[in-house]
């Protein structure tokens, strides 16, 4: 079970017009693995995870999620999105709905859950991200950190097999970063499979099984966090780590 492959990307190539965003990316993620993706802006790390739930189409290569091969068919995309939760940099909560409605919409619409069932699940996950008392509020009434925790709960309500995090703390005020990271650490400790695009190297050290460094659309190197931070193999990685660790 532990070694079961959840995501397999092979030879993935992606272009935006003439610009190549992903170059021959191979990535295998096992069930329960926590992966941190880092790299300079424009290196393709966000693009990579956005391909996993088909927010971006790829031009070459293959992506298999939980045994389902992702192609252009609506059915395949559907099946994969049921298994993949995503948290965005800009939260993307629905501003015209309460926190509870944000969390119950997808289970009701996409999983055909009953309203009471969906609300019970939503309250459970809102409790878990320690925001259960805000269920009736609208997103705009919450702080950024609270909003991001709602976004995490909302994704969890679909009971995904893997969670993708796209720079979840980059839009937050510094004092709110910790509450979101703590929530993510809790999730990791519960055994959730996670791929996180983040510059929070403390988080990477604490929870990651592997840290992957990307530049110019390619995976340059990867390794366990200790080895990765202490002894990076490539000059490009050393330069990047030098730049971001200088500020921490």
């Amino acid at each position, binding site marked *: 079970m532990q070694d079961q492959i959840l995501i397999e990307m092979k030879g993935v190539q992606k272009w935006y017009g003439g610009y190549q965003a992903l170059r021959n990316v191979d990535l295998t993620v096992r069930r329960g693995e926590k992966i941190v993706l880092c790299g300079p802006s424009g290196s393709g790390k966000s693009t990579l995870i956005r391909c996993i739930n088909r927010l971006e189409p790829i031009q070459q290569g293959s992506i298999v999620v939980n045994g389902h091969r992702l192609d252009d068919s609506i059915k395949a995309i559907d099946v994969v*999105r049921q298994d993949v939760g995503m948290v965005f940099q800009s939260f*993307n909560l*629905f*501003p015209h709905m309460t926190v509870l409605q944000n969390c119950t919409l*997808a289970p009701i*619409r*996409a999983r055909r859950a009953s309203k009471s069932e969906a609300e019970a699940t939503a309250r459970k996950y809102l409790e878990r991200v320690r925001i259960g008392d805000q269920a009736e509020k609208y997103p705009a009434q919450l702080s950024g950190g609270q909003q991001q925790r709602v976004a995490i709960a909302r994704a969890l309500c*679909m009971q995904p097999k893997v969670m993708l995090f796209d720079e979840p703390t980059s839009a937050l005020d510094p004092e709110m970063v910790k509450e979101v990271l703590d929530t993510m650490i809790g999730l990791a400790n519960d055994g959730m499979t996670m791929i996180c695009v983040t510059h929070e190297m403390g988080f990477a050290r604490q929870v990651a099984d592997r840290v992957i460094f990307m530049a110019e659309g390619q995976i340059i190197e990867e390794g366990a966090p200790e080895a990765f931070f202490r002894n990076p193999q490539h000059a490009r990685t050393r330069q990047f780590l030098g730049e971001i660790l200088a500020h921490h």
Partner: protein
Amino acid sequence: MAPHFGLAEFGFLLRGLQWTMLLTLVAFVGGCTAGLAVALLRTCGHKGVEWVIRIYIGIFQGTPLLLQLFVVYYGLALTGLKLDAFVAVAIGFTVNASAFLGEIWRGAIQAVPRGQTEGAMALGLHYSSRMRDIVLPQAIRISLPATIGYLVQLIKGTSLAAIVGFIELARAGQIVSNQTFQPLLVFGVVGAMYFILCWPLSWWGSRMEARLALASQR
């Protein structure tokens, strides 16, 4: 001796007002329904469909409404389809409104941040749910001031229906004025009726706009 402007004449104007309101209602409801389809097709992501809808919008925005009414009323009559004046102008205004409202809502749909659609897609929501639950509720809010503004234009614009012989408020005023030789009084009353109809809507629209501006600052 010409009749004076009295109760009978006022009643005639009121009936004209009723026709103006009915025509506006039909054109607005029909225009909203067809306009929603126009807006959705215009943003559907299929290049060919979007191109066809763009031409549709271009034709109705780029030619005079008067001409469009002529085409429906006289043009269709030439093909053997003789329409009642009300039906003809109702069709004309509906089609015209669908193009204008469709374009207003196209803009509003595109003004809803991309992240909303992406958030919904990541949750596995289908197109119908994404539109119904996420995008349209926000787009309608954004478009409300412009939509109300268009409704006010539509009310006043229905006076063009007089051209094919349909007696709405403006045409009724013309008739009464010709009978009574009291144009100032008659058109004063007609103008007041339009004003009473339009001003509250304009007021509501600008209030809505101010409230939206305030909400977006938060």
